[in-house]
């Protein structure tokens, strides 16, 4: 038993072929009405299953051709459609002589049952002619056009809706890109693994580097990186190839020639054979400056600590002398002098305690900022 399947979508043809051959039918599939008529001429066909929306000759036209042709009009004709689903479509199909009208998707078992019922009927009864109202040419054309236009409108509305959703989602991504707080640059990786041209950059990148958007798209990465940074490209590339991601502190060069310290996060990705790198750069000028100022402050604390220790030491040295002089002296003021010495020492002791606290503060600052080296000579 030969089934002729007409559908312009490969996947639909494939599914039907699998289903039908699985139940012992042999299947011939074609992509449109014109091809179907060709096949009818050369092959013995026992059943036709056709989609409606087809290129060149659609399902309605094909059905009319088949049912008006005395040679073929006994072949059961099934419409199998996802697009024409309204009652008017069904009625029009029936008026053309279609035997069944099935809406996609249909459960495979149910689908097979419908086919079996149809082909088991006595051929004379299933010509469909009992339902067929042979329409006049004008009537047919007018109704066919109505169905087509209606379908087209539905498709256009659907297309408009999808387009709108697409535009919305595109705008969302664009906003994400434009309104990020960091500069975002997309650049190519040449086939030889070099950092190449800039393909896209956001407004923050333009602002950071001092180039207009169009100017940036004419640059390569080497032109916005300092020579010191571009010297490391081979290392960056091998890290990227290994881990896909790379984060480091680097430098960019602005149009005016200023060097900007940045924190760079790079991500490598591939599309077919092309490779790209998405770079997110955060300006850390302020962070660097703050860190420099912090180091200066800590150096100052050290200097003060040293001064306090030196002064304490220098005052205590003569105190030792005074104490030793009192030791050998029988003067009645001896104890008064010794008390004064101890009082002075207690003042220095207070300074010492202050130093110890300052030292703790310094150590905390070093620790929470992760600073290990801060002296000029280190």
């Amino acid at each position, binding site marked *: 038993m030969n089934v002729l399947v007409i559908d312009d979508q490969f996947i639909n043809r494939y599914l039907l072929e699998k289903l039908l051959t699985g139940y012992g039918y042999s299947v011939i599939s074609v992509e449109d009405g014109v091809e179907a008529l060709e096949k009818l001429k050369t092959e013995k066909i026992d059943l036709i299953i056709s989609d409606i929306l087809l290129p060149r000759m659609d399902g309605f036209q094909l059905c009319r051709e088949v049912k008006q042709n005395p040679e073929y009009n006994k072949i059961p004709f099934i419409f199998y459609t996802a697009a024409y689903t309204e009652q008017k479509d069904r009625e029009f199909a029936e008026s053309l002589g279609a035997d069944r009208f099935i809406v996609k998707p249909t459960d495979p078992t149910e689908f097979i049952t419908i086919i079996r019922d149809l082909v088991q009927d006595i051929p004379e009864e299933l010509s469909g002619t009992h339902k067929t109202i042979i329409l006049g040419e004008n009537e047919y054309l007018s109704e066919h056009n109505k169905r087509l236009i209606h379908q087209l409108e539905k498709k256009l509305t659907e297309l408009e809706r999808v387009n709108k959703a697409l535009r919305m989602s595109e705008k969302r991504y664009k906003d994400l890109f434009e309104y990020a707080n960091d500069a975002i640059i997309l650049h190519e990786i040449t086939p030889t693994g070099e950092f190449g041209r800039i393909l896209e950059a956001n407004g923050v990148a333009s602002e950071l580097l001092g180039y207009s958007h169009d100017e940036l798209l004419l640059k390569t990465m080497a032109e916005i990186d300092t020579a010191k940074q571009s010297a490391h490209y081979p290392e960056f590339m091998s890290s990227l190839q290994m881990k896909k991601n790379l984060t480091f502190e680097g430098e960019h060069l602005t149009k005016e020639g200023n060097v900007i310290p940045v924190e760079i996060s790079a991500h490598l990705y591939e599309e077919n054979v092309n490779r790209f790198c998405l770079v997110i750069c955060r300006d850390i000028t302020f962070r660097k400056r703050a860190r420099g100022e912090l180091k200066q402050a800590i150096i100052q604390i050290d200097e003060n600590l040293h001064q306090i*220790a030196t002064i304490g*030491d220098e005052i205590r040295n003569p105190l030792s*002398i005074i104490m030793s002089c009192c030791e050998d002296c029988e003067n009645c003021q001896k104890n008064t002098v010794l008390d004064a010495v101890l009082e002075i020492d207690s003042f220095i002791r207070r300074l*010492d305690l202050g130093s110890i606290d300052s030292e703790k503060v310094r150590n905390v600052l070093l620790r929470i900022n992760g600073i290990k080296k801060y002296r000029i000579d280190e």
Partner: protein
Amino acid sequence: MMSRKILVIEDNEQNMYLMHFLLESHGYTVIEAENGHIGIQKAIDENPEIILLDIQLPEMDGYEIAGIIRKTPGIDTIPIIAVTSYAMAGDKERILAAGATDYIEKPINPATFVSQIAPHFPDRDQS
């Protein structure tokens, strides 16, 4: 019998005078050094039994001097007693880690100074 030798490394003249006076009056021989370079050289030349080391010194400080003495063969086992102000005494561990045997806090108390040093002589029975 030869009197016991103590090397004093101290930059403050008055303090040096005081320590010298106190130690000599107890019968010790005092060798003076006003900075680390001279001190290390004199330690090698004179082989003192104890080294008194001020921590607050210009250029090379007491920590550094103690470290060098501990690494110099021939003088590496001589007891070092650090003399330090209180804030520095807060760094007791640092002083001991640098190689000092013990420390004395400033201001020096003339009444107890010598008795703080005495226990550190390598072998008391031979005095």
